[in-house]
């Protein structure tokens, strides 16, 4: 029957569309198979990848479930066990004894009811850590992405058009000197200074990191561009008649994307830590916004390390796990993005005795 339908169908857009769709599907399937092979050959990357997927999906659920629930069942639904700032009043207490003093406190150790325990106000730590996830992740990704875009484009310009004694060369020098000025300050100190000037809040903190983060990408990208620019294949492209802009897009960006992506992935973690540090020092996001660095700072000032270490460990652990996940993924990406090692990995992972098709071309 299906065969009949195909036979009677004119060679119209529908059959073409189907053809395209099947070709896309086979493409996807072979791509997926290659991906799995690479992951199997490189287990740590797989671990990093799974962690990142889990972290991102939790963040997405935390953000999207309440409005979806509101729309579907009329009230917000959440995967958080409790509200991030909800505390029972009066809270269930336990008695803590330090030295000669005994006093009641709302901090409860981890239990089935509160998987990560509660803090000094009786708030559920698991809920708090999860509620902070979207914000921290967005900061890690978005701030780093902006820094990479800004610094990366400046680095491209500075690296590619660096002929001395021309206007372009002068622009390139100007970019580099500006970068040097920013790099002369320790980035954390500069970020702290900017954040302190702009005042407490999420946006000022984000701005502060953005303003201090781009120079690293200028340096990174410029260095890579200088290497790629002098590769014979760039000269070959010029000899073919490609314009500068097309060489830049076709060869230069393609070849510097790998180190930049890897650096970016690793940097997501660093930005996260910096953001948390700014909050930790007390000039970042306001206290009522759940944020990991903020939590570590707050619980530390409440002297909870001694009597309720789970509070600080939960927030600090969240930072640690997230940064670790991205670092593992970033390391693995380095291998995956290079076509040379990509093939090698994929072949190494296949238990086969067939020789690699490297001898092709020897006709």
């Amino acid at each position, binding site marked *: 029957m299906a065969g009949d339908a195909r036979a009677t169908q004119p060679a119209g857009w529908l059959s073409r569309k189907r053809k395209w769709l099947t070709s896309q599907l086979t493409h996807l399937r072979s791509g997926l198979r290659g991906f799995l092979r690479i992951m199997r050959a490189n287990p740590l990357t797989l671990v990093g990848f799974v962690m990142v997927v889990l972290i991102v999906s939790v963040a997405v659920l935390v953000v999207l479930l309440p409005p979806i629930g509101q729309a579907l069942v009329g009230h917000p639904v959440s995967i958080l066990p409790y509200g991030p700032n909800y505390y029972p009043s009066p809270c269930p207490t336990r008695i803590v004894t330090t030295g000669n003093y005994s006093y009641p406190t709302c901090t409860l150790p981890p239990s089935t009811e509160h998987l990560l325990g509660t803090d000094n106000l009786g708030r559920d730590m698991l809920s708090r850590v999860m509620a902070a996830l979207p914000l921290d992740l967005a900061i890690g990704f978005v701030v780093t992405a902006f820094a990479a875009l800004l610094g990366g484009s400046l680095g491209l310009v500075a690296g590619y058009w660096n002929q001395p004694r021309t206007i372009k060369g002068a622009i390139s020098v100007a970019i580099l000197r500006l970068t040097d000025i920013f790099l002369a300050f320790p980035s954390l100190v500069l970020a702290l200074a900017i954040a302190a000037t702009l005042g407490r809040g999420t946006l000022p903190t984000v701005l502060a990191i953005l303003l201090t983060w781009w120079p690293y990408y200028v340096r990174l990208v410029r260095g890579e561009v200088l290497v790629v620019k002098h590769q014979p294949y760039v000269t*070959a492209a010029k000899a073919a008649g490609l314009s500068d802009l097309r060489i830049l897009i076709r060869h230069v960006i393609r070849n510097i994307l790998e180190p930049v992506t890897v650096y970016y992935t690793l940097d997501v973690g660093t930005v996260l830590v910096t953001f948390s540090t700014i909050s930790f020092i007390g000039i970042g996001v306001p206290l009522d916004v759940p944020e990991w660095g903020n939590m570590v700072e707050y619980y530390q000032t409440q002297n909870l390390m001694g009597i309720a270490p789970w509070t600080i460990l939960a927030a600090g652990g969240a930072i640690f796990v997230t940064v670790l996940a991205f670092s593992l993924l970033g390391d693995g990406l380095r291998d995956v993005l290079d076509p040379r090692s990509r093939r090698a990995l994929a072949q190494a992972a296949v238990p086969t005795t067939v020789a690699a098709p490297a001898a092709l071309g020897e006709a």
Partner: protein
Amino acid sequence: MTEFLVEATGVTKHFPLTQSLTETLSRQERRSIHAVDGVSLTIGRGESLGLIGESGSGKTTLGWLIARLFEPTSGTILFEGRDISHLTGRELRSWRRKVQVVFQDPVGSLDPRMRVWQIVGEPILAQEKATKSEIRARVGEILPSVGLPTGSLDLYPHEFSGGGRQRLALARALILRPKLIVLDEPTSALDVAVQAQVLNRLVALQEEFGFSYLLITHNVAAVRYVADRVAVMYLGKLAEVGPVRQVLEHPLHPYTKALLAALPVPEVRRRGARYRVSGEVPTLISPPPGCRFAGRCPFVIDRCRTEEPLLRVLANLPDQWVACHRVEEIGVIPPDELIGEAPVLPDRPSTMPATPSPER
């Protein structure tokens, strides 16, 4: 329409050196490397010109000048009668379809992140509006002519051997059917067997498509095999130009003789017994007046140090141009006899010697 495809006249390329601050302040003249200094040569349509010389003699620079990867400091290059020496921008880019280059390094000149069809199809992309499938089709057509399977369109360059990569570079140069292909050491990275394959392919392709070649190489055997004419370069200047058999078998210029005598010969008895020139290759920064070879030439006379010899043709050897003041005296001495120390020459022959002995 002129007779020649390429007609270079007095082509010069100087690379200025970076000045130190004190030099700039004391208004010293900017020094430069005279990589190519007043070279004039022609390449005919469908002709292969071999360009030989030692490292640093400016062979590659000259090739890049003719392919306009460098802009000449002075002099003109006519291509099909049109002056291309100072083309820029769009005009230069569209002119490039007529001249393609095969680079020395078959690994580096292929972008490791691109597939075969993207690499070989790049000139099409640069010169024409073509869709992906058109480019793929045309690349698929050209691959067999360099001896690569059509099915390798989606491979990466690292999946090829050295010879395979050089063929890819060749295919990229061929795909637009250019008038001239500049081959910059196309075989230096390859082993002898693959060299032979590539050279055979070059000759076959020339017969098929009728390109002109500019073959830049150290490899005299390759020149002998591929080229119609050969030009010998020394320190940015041409020493000798002529038909390949004539120059290689009866070199006239002392430098050509030395270069050819330095070739290894698979004959045990001849080891050690070679014509040698002593001394170092002088620097290309502000070279002295006179003959460039004067410092090392065993036949040097005072005139060589003051007056620069121009390329001239000998009465009895048309087509063979030599830049040497004393060629009439030295020219006939076969390199084999120039062994060890420079031989003592007869004082001054009253007559110009005849053509080199026919049995050689």
